[in-house]
């Protein structure tokens, strides 16, 4: 056995807990999870059945944690997990799983298969079986602070641009601010209008907020590749920034995995609870709406639909907020079939978007999303995750569909009711 394989098996063993043992014990191979997974429904290849993606981990559990399995191992009759096998499974565990969590919602015996895949990736990455693209993105995140290689200079340039556009100051490194805003790589690089949008909204609502020059990037490739150490390092930087500025809240951006990383996995990754609360930007906006501090005028005329980012909705619990906010500014908002917690993934979550090798498969299974969109007849898709947004744009272009994709926060900012004082003389 190679050293990396041995380390991978040990990592897998460490990941196995009672839920994992219960889930493997309960599986009756009914195959229902296949029908919940877009990688199966769009390819009809049984190898994409979610529970099958865990076969090596199941054998580690059986051989290490069950009486009969241990006996079989002692007698040399059980089949050990091999490097070749993990190599074969790499595609199943990474390329064809977006950690979307739909299978976990469908399994009749209640197996949280996504929870299992997340844990299996810990063993995969340690044994050296993770996709190159995702590995490189994670490396960039650790080295430069961003999987897309975004630096502070890039952010500063975008901030300057936003200040010029809004006539307002974008607060940076303000100690004692109530909220610290975190952004995603894609927001800084491609969808930087978000900076101006939140600046205007927060200005109108009177929110005390700041960006942090040492902690502005929320994208967490660590949880996607499945490395608790790297994920913990990335979350730790945000925690350090928030603690330094003594903020009460950290705002998670429109990025699904950033939310999962910061809100749900973070404290477990760093091994302690936070001294601040994490709030998603949509949760905050909904709160402001309820308090009458977020006011909009006018409505979008065209038919809109909302794409639920998996990590935000099904795996995150921010379900009603986007709908309530969207209804403020939409006159013809239609839900997709299977919306909310049953929505279908854009196909690029869980690190798939950073894994170029998976592009052809991702674009193939986009047919599921395409059908969902077609059924609504919408001409604009609103979403709340910059990765989903990129994946939707890519999929739509691939299918020659002329549909606009916008971020919810920006759409709200466009309809923002501003105070009497012209914004240009605002904070400057």
């Amino acid at each position, binding site marked *: 056995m190679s050293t990396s394989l041995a380390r991978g098996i040990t990592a897998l063993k460490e990941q*196995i*807990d*009672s*839920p994992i*043992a*219960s*889930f493997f*014990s*309960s*599986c*009756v*191979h*009914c*195959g*229902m999870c*296949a*029908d919940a997974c877009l990688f*199966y429904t769009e390819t*009809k290849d*049984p*190898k994409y*059945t979610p*529970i*099958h993606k865990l076969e090596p981990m199941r054998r580690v559990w059986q051989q290490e*944690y*069950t*009486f*009969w399995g241990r006996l079989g191992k002692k007698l040399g009759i059980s089949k050990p997990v091999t490097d070749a096998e993990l190599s074969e499974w790499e595609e199943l565990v990474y390329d064809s799983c977006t950690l979307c969590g739909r299978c*976990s*919602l*469908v*399994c*009749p*015996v*209640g*197996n*949280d298969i996504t*929870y299992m895949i997340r844990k299996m990736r810990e063993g995969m990455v340690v044994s050296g079986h993770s996709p190159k693209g995702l590995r490189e993105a994670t490396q960039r995140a650790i080295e430069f602070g961003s999987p897309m290689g975004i630096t502070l200079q890039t952010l500063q340039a975008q901030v300057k641009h936003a200040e010029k556009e809004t006539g307002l100051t974008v607060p940076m490194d303000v100690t004692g601010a109530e909220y610290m805003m975190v952004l995603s790589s894609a927001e800084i690089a491609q969808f930087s209008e978000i900076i101006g949008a939140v600046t205007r909204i927060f200005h109108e609502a009177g929110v005390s907020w700041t960006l942090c020059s040492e902690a502005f990037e929320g994208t967490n490739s660590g949880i996607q590749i499945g490395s608790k150490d790297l994920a913990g390092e990335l979350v730790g930087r945000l925690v350090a920034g928030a603690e330094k500025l003594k903020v009460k809240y950290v705002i998670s951006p429109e990025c699904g995995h950033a939310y999962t990383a910061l*809100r*749900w*996995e*973070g*404290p*477990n990754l760093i*091994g*302690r*609870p*936070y001294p601040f*609360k*994490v709030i998603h930007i949509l949760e905050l906006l909904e709160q402001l709406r309820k308090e009458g501090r977020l006011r909009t005028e006018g409505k979008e005329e065209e038919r809109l639909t909302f794409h639920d980012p998996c990590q935000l*909705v*099904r*795996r*995150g*619990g921010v*379900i009603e907020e986007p709908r309530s906010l969207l209804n403020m500014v939409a006159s013809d908002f239609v839900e997709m079939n299977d919306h909310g*917690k*049953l929505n279908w993934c854009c196909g690029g979550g869980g690190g798939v978007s950073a894994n170029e090798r998976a592009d052809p498969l991702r674009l193939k299974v986009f047919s599921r999303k395409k059908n969902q969109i077609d059924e609504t007849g919408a001409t604009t898709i609103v979403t709340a995750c910059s990765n989903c947004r990129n994946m939707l744009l890519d999929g739509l272009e691939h299918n020659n569909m002329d549909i606009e994709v916008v971020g919810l926060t920006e759409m709200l900012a466009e309809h923002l009711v501003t105070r009497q004082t012209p914004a240009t003389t605002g904070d400057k």
Partner: protein
Amino acid sequence: MTSMELLLWARGPGLQIATAVLLLGLVFRLLEIYTPGRKPDLSEARASGMGPGVRTIFSRSVPLKGMWTKEISGYTFHIGFLVVLLFFVPHILLFKDTFGFGWPGISNSMIDFITVLTLAALAYTLFTRITDPVRRFLSTFGDYLALLLTALPLITGYMAFHRLGLPYTQMLAIHILSVEALMIFLPFTKLVHAVTILGSRWYNGAISGRKGVQS
């Protein structure tokens, strides 16, 4: 050993052994599965996971829309098996002999009908295991063994009741032995899902529930 002796053994020591293996085996398996526990979750819960966990134990028995067709045979044989086990009058009498109390049963003709329906559902389940590409791909020896262990008590019970095949005493002995086989194998095969399903559904519901999502 005569048929009568076999029957007496099956009803006496055989049943005791099977019950002991079932109970001790289950305790052993449940300890094996549930004693490692899980790490405490340090993230701030949006809601308690307890209630949603319990709710998922029940709600997961209701299939999602559009999934009925795939599950109909599964429902039929699970419910049918339980009804025949719990409401066939001789089964209730056997229970009453041991524990001193019972409950009303349902008519033999009804039990007969449900048995046939249950066997048909099991046969259909076997058929889909072989023909459905996903199920065939996933299926292992253990899946077929579980089906066989479930079907045997129904088949032998039906044959004993209708005096088919072997003489009644012999058939009845075989019927009881087949039930004992099911009991003995349950903790160590796929059949253990009958119990671990509670834990799995609870975990699923609780993990989601603390994030504010009813799974």
